[in-house]
């Protein structure tokens, strides 16, 4: 699974994406953020305020409790500021 990062989250992590294979227990977006944070302190710090993290699964905006299922691409990013 590819996990994409955008804007300040991308900058704080110092990378555009990770290629990961989460274990079965990682079911939701929230689980995925927990799991990535447990492996990487920088990730845990950057995502500490969960209210500032938005998510998409395969080009669809989702909530943190949405199951990741067999997603091929998950994206994590800050609240949007376009327009």
């Amino acid at each position, binding site marked *: 699974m590819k996990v994409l990062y955008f*804007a300040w989250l991308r900058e704080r992590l110092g990378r555009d994406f990770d290629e990961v294979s989460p274990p079965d227990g990682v079911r939701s977006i929230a689980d995925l953020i927990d799991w990535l944070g447990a492996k990487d302190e920088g990730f845990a710090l950057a995502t500490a305020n969960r209210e500032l993290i938005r998510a*998409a699964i395969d080009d669809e*905006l989702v909530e943190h409790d949405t199951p990741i299922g067999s997603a091929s691409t998950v*994206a994590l990013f800050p609240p949007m500021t*376009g*327009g």
Partner: protein
Amino acid sequence: MSVTLQSEPFDPGALVNAFLSSSQGAGAAVTFTGIVRSSEDDPIVSMTLEHYPSLAKRQLLDLRDAAIARFALIDATIIHRFGTLYPGDPIVQVMTLAPHRQAAFDGANFIMDTLKTTAPFWKKEERAGASEWVKAKQSDDAATARWA
């Protein structure tokens, strides 16, 4: 050109003229142009708009469809730039076409209010010696919510 994402500048007037020339049966067109803001007391040098291309395209196409259905618009167009922009540059243009003005105004308003919080774009402002990501505003969430 119903939904366009581009790094190149666009000419708002030319876009309006092209849009109006296809306005069969319409009694009202509304155009909104968002511009890179810079003020004398807080000048910015440039603005960089990062985006998530595939999701941005999908969100804007869905938003256009939703606006046309909800307000019975004849047509709607959204153009949004990404990349590096400068003060005074147009960022986004939304145009709606309807039989009567209220639907055209409401449709454009709905598109902008919803786009702000649901289309994956992020602004970074560059000032002399520093750059900073623009923070999302609660007032933007409230503006989106009023159409729920």
